[in-house]
């Protein structure tokens, strides 16, 4: 008899404040959160604490909170997020991750906080892991420019104090087609599907600010860079797949999970249990994450796990 590590199924809640200031759960399609039809209010899909509790009961292996307006709102105004963590951790006894706003900042009264202090508040409130997004891109850009770690990035500081397993880096790549394998100074791969003009190769460009801005850095280089800086895990989203229900981007996940030795969470695009099994069979990803399909109860967490189990993929039942 022997044991083995199961693949994890993670439920994610994108959290923001609605126009009344209440914290609600949203699910943006293709990163465009504002409701397209009707008035400008944000879709309300349930309260964060209740939803986290429901996911726990339903068998989620981990629960992740993403404050998707983190790049605009200061954590101090975001204190409600700390309360979400505190209350959730009272009844949710699986790992909790929180992302959004984990950076140095100065509040309206002029008081400064380091990213380490911000992270400390999240940990004290019940988070097991914090997730860093846009700042990871600049940290790796700095690393590549300097040729060595500065010791100053949030990733380094937080992983030094709390351990690398407490630091997740969230990556938001978008697929860019190229005419040849060497067309750009970034790692390219042969795509499993041809491009609109018959292109065979592509790279995955890192974006920041919720997908609004592209950076001259590939997801491959970012992944290797954050691993070097001390990140313990990568949350690999995909702008092109988010909200489509078409399935994960297998090429992207394969590329990144082969590039690093830290665990990779596949995210964006899951529409059915088969997408999870397909992804686990074709890549070395350690976990699969979904948000919308679980929120909207189109797919249950249990159906994903039952399916994995029936496919011989180890799962926590």
């Amino acid at each position, binding site marked *: 008899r022997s044991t*083995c*590590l199961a693949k994890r199924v993670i439920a994610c809640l994108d959290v923001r404040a609605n126009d009344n200031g209440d914290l609600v759960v949203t699910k943006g399609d293709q990163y465009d959160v504002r409701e397209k039809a009707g008035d400008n209010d944000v879709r309300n899909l349930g309260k964060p604490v209740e939803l986290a509790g429901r996911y726990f009961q339903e068998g989620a292996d981990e629960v992740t909170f993403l404050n998707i307006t983190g790049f605009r709102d200061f954590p101090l105004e975001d204190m409600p997020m700390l309360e979400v963590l505190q209350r959730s951790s009272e009844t949710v006894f*699986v790992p909790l991750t929180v992302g959004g706003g984990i950076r140095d900042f100065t509040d309206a009264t002029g008081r400064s906080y380091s990213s380490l202090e911000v992270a400390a508040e999240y940990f*004290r409130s*019940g988070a097991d892991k914090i997730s860093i997004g846009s700042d990871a891109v600049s940290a790796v850009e700095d690393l590549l420019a300097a040729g060595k770690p500065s010791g100053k990035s949030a990733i380094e500081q937080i992983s030094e104090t709390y*351990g*690398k397993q407490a630091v997740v880096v969230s990556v938001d790549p978008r697929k860019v087609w190229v005419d040849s394998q060497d067309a750009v100074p970034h790692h390219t791969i042969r795509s499993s599907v041809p491009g609109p003009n018959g292109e065979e190769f592509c790279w995955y460009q890192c974006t920041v600010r919720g997908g609004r801005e592209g950076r001259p850095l590939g997801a491959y280089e970012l992944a290797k860079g954050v691993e070097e800086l001390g990140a313990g895990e990568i949350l690999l989203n995909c702008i092109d797949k988010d909200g489509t229900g078409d399935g994960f981007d297998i090429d992207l996940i394969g590329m990144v999970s082969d590039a690093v*030795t830290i665990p990779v969470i596949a995210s964006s695009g899951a529409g059915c249990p088969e997408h999870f099994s397909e992804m686990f069979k074709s890549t070395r990803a350690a976990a699969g994450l979904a948000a919308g399909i679980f929120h909207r109860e189109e797919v249950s967490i249990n159906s994903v796990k039952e399916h994995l189990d029936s496919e011989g993929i180890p799962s926590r039942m």
Partner: protein
Amino acid sequence: MSRSGITTSENREVTLLDYGVGNVRSVRNAIKYLGFEVREVTKPEDILTAKRLIFPGVGSYGAAMDILKRKDFVDPLKEYLAEGKPFLGICLGLQLLFEGSEESSGVEGLGVVPGMVTAFDPSQGLVVPHMGWNGLEQRKPSAALGCVEDKRVYFVHSFRALETEKNSEWVLSTTDYGGEFVSSIQKGQVTAMQFHPEKSGAVGLELFKSFLEGHEKVPEATSLAVGALPTVAPLCLM
């Protein structure tokens, strides 16, 4: 007073050694969820006067031993462990019981369990840290893991202890990840888990309950065996 010497008023109390780094909130939440109260360790004496002690370890080996030394907790801890009163170590709280760790070379651990803690090796493609839900192979009869059986518990660590001839009697369960490692230990009333029961869902809560309530039912297979663990009566609720 019940057999274990704990009075009614202390029946629902457990002492928690929180040395101030990382998230111990979940352990507190689990304890409260089960209807127990947390008594904090603020000074060395609090360790010695504890009736049951939980030690969740977080952070790095060296940093933890450093804090324990500065707060004068090391000797009281060793004394508590030698006295045989109920003790539950979690994660680093298991590793610190050993002699030392590759994570912080030169730093001495509590040295209660023979052996060193060493690193998982990512060079052959092993994903490190070991993060996620894995199983336990129970190696000796004990009610401490009674409820787990085939269920999975949550691990997150980059270092682990390996079984040796010298520490074999301590090994309560092993787990496979890049080879077999020690996932929990027990000797008498001292138990420690490499995994996180406070992050292991319902199974984890059962493990806490089993420790807190201190009751042991002797597993069937060993009730006639020589050297079986003595049965301890459930705490009297007077």
